[in-house]
């Protein structure tokens, strides 16, 4: 195939390969019992071990949003409680899910691609297959399942910690009292916000893990190939999060 045609066809070939990989993963859900322990391990690695960095990012997001909202909105004509009314929906509808998604793209996406890429170039995936094990079921299903299950949990944690960060910033800077912040948040609270954020985090969890698994699983070359896969996984996950964020906003709002 000429190089030019190959370059044009490559994204379509990747989409086709991704679809086949995910349908194979879906088919191997029948053997989930075999992969249960591996799924639990991945839930710890993707979910529990990500809590500190997600918490840090969420706390600062909440704090910065509070300070900036105060700077932009509060005037003698607008009551300070509006800060709570702006910060909480910002966190539940957008920042909680997107900040968590970006953090996990780097932390989890890159790790998955590096792990699977190394396994590919050192023939460990061939060794699994040669034993008669379904490598897609064993390696990909637990990671994608862990992503789908744990990213929403991290989203909830990010929202709670983000709000606490906002409250702390409000108190420390004196832009608004805790009582007014909470009052504003409660008065304008819309239950759809957390649901919307949860849907987003579920989609982001799938995208980060599935795309990184795909890139890692089909790594070619040696250390250079693993390096390229790791970078691609982090970048692709971030780009897909941005696209999915917009698509979901258009579809659901």
């Amino acid at each position, binding site marked *: 195939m000429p190089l030019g045609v190959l370059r044009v066809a490559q994204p379509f070939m990747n989409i086709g390969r991704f679809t086949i990989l995910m349908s194979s993963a879906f088919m191997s859900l029948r053997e989930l019992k075999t992969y249960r322990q591996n799924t639990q391990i991945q839930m710890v690695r993707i979910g529990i071990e990500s809590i500190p960095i997600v918490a840090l990012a969420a706390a600062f997001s909440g704090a910065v949003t509070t300070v900036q909202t105060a700077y932009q909105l509060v005037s003698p004509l607008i009551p300070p409680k509006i800060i709570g009314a702006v910060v909480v929906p910002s966190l539940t509808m957008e920042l909680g899910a997107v900040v968590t998604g970006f953090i996990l793209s780097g932390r989890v996406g890159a790790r998955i691609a590096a792990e699977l890429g190394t396994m590919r170039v050192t023939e*460990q995936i*061939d060794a699994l297959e040669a034993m008669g094990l379904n490598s897609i079921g064993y390696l990909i299903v637990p990671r994608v399942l862990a992503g789908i299950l744990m990213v929403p949990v991290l989203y909830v944690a990010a929202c709670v910690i983000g709000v606490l960060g906002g409250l702390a910033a409000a108190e420390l800077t004196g832009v608004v009292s805790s009582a007014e912040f909470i009052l504003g948040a409660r008065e304008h609270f819309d239950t759809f916000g957390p649901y919307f954020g949860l849907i987003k985090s579920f989609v982001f969890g799938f995208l980060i893990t599935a795309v990184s698994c795909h890139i890692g699983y089909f790594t070619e070359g040696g250390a250079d190939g693993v390096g390229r896969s790791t970078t691609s996984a982090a970048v692709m996950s971030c780009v897909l999060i941005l696209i999915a964020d917009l698509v979901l906003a258009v579809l659901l709002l």
Partner: protein
Amino acid sequence: MIRVENVYKSFAGRPVLQDVSLTIREGSTQAIIGRSGSGKSVLMKHIIGLLRPDQGRILVNHTDISKISYNELRKIRRQFGVLFQGGALFDSMDSFENVAFPLRTFTSKTDQEIRQEVQTCLDLVQLSNVGSKSTSALSGGMRKRIALARAIALRPRYIIYDEPTSGLDPETSNTINELIRNLARHLEITSIVVTHDMHSVLQIADHVAFIHDTRMHWTGTTEELHQSNDTILRSFVKANEYVIGTHHSPNSP
């Protein structure tokens, strides 16, 4: 018995195997020799079903593995043990867990039974005391022996060795060759050795198949190999003898 019948395989339009046929007799040790890039490893991957031929058939106990479903293929693969060139040990596990992995995955043995079985395999490869060692702390020869212990853990009917002595010093190569010979004798395994090391071939093989330029060029017994007048085969054997000579000669520079 394994029969390879008129196999043709190409990658991106470039043939890597052309009209290759071979019969591997039960209980024998078959060496597949040839220069680097001649198609030996591709043939090995066809025999285990990691690659499917473009044309031709691969029969394992009269079952054409190029036509069966993935799940049926996985059952057939469980009759094989494979020693990959770099060992392909799982670096997320220590040596003991690597050997225990197929037993934990495919049998319902208790922990105690698995421990005994792993110890037996480690004894067979003369590495009784390295179970707790991380795979990264092992030398090249030790890695291959642990990989060999993992390959025989399920007592396979066939065992495939992909370049078992490549990258090893002559003394360690001899140890590996001895192990291959002993395992074939003690466990009554059919062995397939893919190599370009003639020293290995002469020590362990009963039958030899020589692939040259993507085609099966010559097949016969080890005795017939000595008597062959085929110029290409003789040239390959002679080149190896030269290498072996320079390795062992005390006067070599």
